[in-house]
C-alpha cells in the first residue's frame, strides 16, 4: 500500500507538471495526451519502486532519452508485434511436435525451444530485461514487475474514477439548488 501511495503522489505530481501549460495540453490530440498520461504513470511507477529491481531503471532511461512519448508507444507496439510473432512460431512449433511425436528427444527439443521463445518474449515485455539476466532473475523481475504493474493499474483506475466523479459533479444539476441556498448564508456571514 505504501507503494500505491507513493505511486499516486508521483503520478499526481508528474501529471501536474505536464498539464501545467493547460492550453498546450488541451491542444494535444487524444493520442498524445494518452501517451503523456501513460508516460507519467510509468515514470511515477518507476520512481516509486526505487532501486530494488531492473525495470524501473529501464523505464526511466527510456523516458529520459526520448523527448517525446512517441518512442515508448512505438517500442511497445514493436514488442507486441515481436511477441505475437513469437507466439505464432510457438504455435507452429507446438503443432509440429504433436505431429512428429516420434522420438522423445525431438519433442523435448521442441519443448525446450518453446520455453526459450517464451522466455525471450517475456524479456521483451518486461522493461529492462533484455538479454541481461539469467532465467531466475528474469522470473524475479517478472514477479516484481507484475506486482507493481497491478498496483499501477489500480491507482490509475481510482484516479480516473475520481476524476470522472468530480467532472460529473461539476456538470451535474443537483448542486445548483443547494448552491443558491448556500450563497445566501455565505453572504450573510460576510
Amino acid at each position, binding site marked *: *500500500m*505504501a507503494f*500505491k*501511495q507513493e505511486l499516486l503522489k508521483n503520478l*499526481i*505530481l508528474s*501529471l*501536474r507538471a505536464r*498539464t501545467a501549460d*493547460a492550453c498546450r495540453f*488541451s491542444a494535444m490530440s*487524444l493520442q498524445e495526451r*494518452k*501517451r503523456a*498520461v*501513460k508516460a507519467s*504513470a510509468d515514470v511515477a511507477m518507476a520512481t516509486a519502486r*526505487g532501486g*530494488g*529491481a531492473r525495470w524501473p531503471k529501464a523505464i526511466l532511461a527510456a523516458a529520459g532519452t526520448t523527448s517525446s512519448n512517441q518512442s515508448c508507444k512505438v517500442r511497445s507496439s514493436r514488442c507486441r508485434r515481436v511477441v505475437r510473432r513469437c*507466439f505464432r512460431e*510457438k504455435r507452429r512449433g507446438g503443432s509440429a511436435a504433436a505431429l512428429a511425436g516420434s522420438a522423445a528427444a525431438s519433442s*523435448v*527439443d521442441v*519443448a*525446450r*525451444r*518453446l*520455453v*526459450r521463445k*517464451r*522466455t*525471450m*518474449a*517475456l*524479456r521483451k515485455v518486461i522493461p529492462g530485461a533484455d538479454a541481461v*539476466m*539469467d532465467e*531466475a532473475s528474469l*522470473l524475479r523481475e*517478472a*514477479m516484481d514487475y*507484475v*506486482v507493481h*504493474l497491478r*498496483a499501477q493499474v*489500480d491507482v*490509475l483506475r*481510482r484516479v480516473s474514477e*475520481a*476524476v470522472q*466523479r*468530480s467532472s460529473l*459533479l*461539476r456538470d451535474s444539476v443537483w*448542486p445548483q439548488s443547494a*448552491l443558491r441556498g*448556500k*450563497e445566501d448564508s455565505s453572504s450573510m*456571514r460576510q
Partner: protein
Amino acid sequence: MESRAAGGGDYIASLLSSAPRLDFGVLGGVPGMDGAAGDGGDSLEKFCGDPGFAERAARLSSFSGQRFAGAGGLFGLPPPALAASNGDFGGSREASSVSDPASAMRDANAKKRKAPAAAKGKGKEPPCQAGEQNDSDAKRCKTDGGDKREESPVKPKAEQAGSDVSVEDSGQKPGKGKNAKPVEPPKDYVHVRARRGQATDSHSLAERVRRERISQRMKVLQDLVPGCNKVIGKALMLDEIINYVQSLQRQVEFLSMKLATVNPVDFSNLPALLQKDMFQACGPSASSVFSLESSNSGFPFSDQGDVFQSFVPNGMENQCNLNPLDLALSQATSAQYAFQDGTPSSNLQQRNFWEEDLPSVFQMDNGQSQENGVSAQSFHGQLQAGHMKMEF
C-alpha cells in the same frame, strides 16, 4: 489484491523467502558481482563461507566420475542452438563469467546450463538442494530416478577453490565423452547434499540449485498470475505470465486514455478526490500521501497559477455546497484529514478540493461513519469559506 501490492521489493522478498527454500530473501544483490547474479549471488555468498566446503568438494569429486556417465550422454542439444540462446542466459548463474579466465569454457558451460533450464519443465532432473529441502527433493528424486539429462556443469562464482578444479576435471572427462565441451573448472560453492542416484559433482548440484530457484520463482509467479494454477509446465506458465503482463499493460494504456479524455484538464484536485479511496483501502496512513502532497506541491502550484485561479471559483461554489452534505454524511475521517493538513494557507487549496470531494463519497462505499467529527467538519468548512472570501 490490495494486500499483494505491498511495498515492492519487500513483498517480492517475502514471497521468495516464504517458501522453504534456499535463502532467496536477500534482494540487495552483491555489488561485486555482475548485475546478472542479483540475488542469486547472495545465496551463494552464503555458501561460500562454509568451512566444510573443501572436504565436501573432495567427497563430491570422488563421486563425480561414476555419476557423470549417465549425465553426459543426455546432452542432446546441439551446441549451435545453445549458442543462439547463450546471449539470453549468458550471465552465468553466479556471474563469474566475467572474471573467470577460462571464459570460453564458461560460455560453453552457460550453454549447457541453458539446456537443463529449458527442459526443466519437461524432464525434471532430480534436484538436489541444500539441506533444507530434503523431503520434497527426496520425493522428486525418487520419481525422476536416474533421469539425468543435460547435466551441465554450472558456472559458479568468481572466487573459487582452485584445488577442486583438477579433481573435478578428471572426474568429468570420462563422463562427458559425448559432449564437445571441454572440462570446465568447477567453481561451485553451493552446498547441496548429494542424493542417491544423482550426479554429485558440484556442477550438477549447483545446476540443480539453480533449477530449484527457478522453479520456486515459477511457483511464486503462479500464485501471482491469476489462472495459472491449472497450468503445468514451464512453457505454458510463461505463456500465461506474458499474457497477463500484456493485459496489464493494455489496461494501463486504456486507463491513461481515459484519463486523457478529462476535460477540463485539472489534476489539482486529485489528492482530495483520492483521499477517500486510499483511506478506504489502506487505513489512515493515506493521509501521509497528502501531507507529502502539500510539501511537494510548491512548484506545481506556481506553475499552474492560471489553472488554479480558474478553478477557485468552482472550489468556492462546491465548498458552499458541501456543508449540508457534510452533516448528512458525517464523514469523520475527512475531518481528521482536515486537521492533519495543517493550517497554513498553502494548504488551503488541498482542503478546498477535499471539501469539494465530499459528495463523491455518496457513491463510495465507506465502511466507517462516525458522528463525532461532523460538527468540527462543518465548522472547518465554514472557516474555509471565510478564508476564501477574504482571499478572493
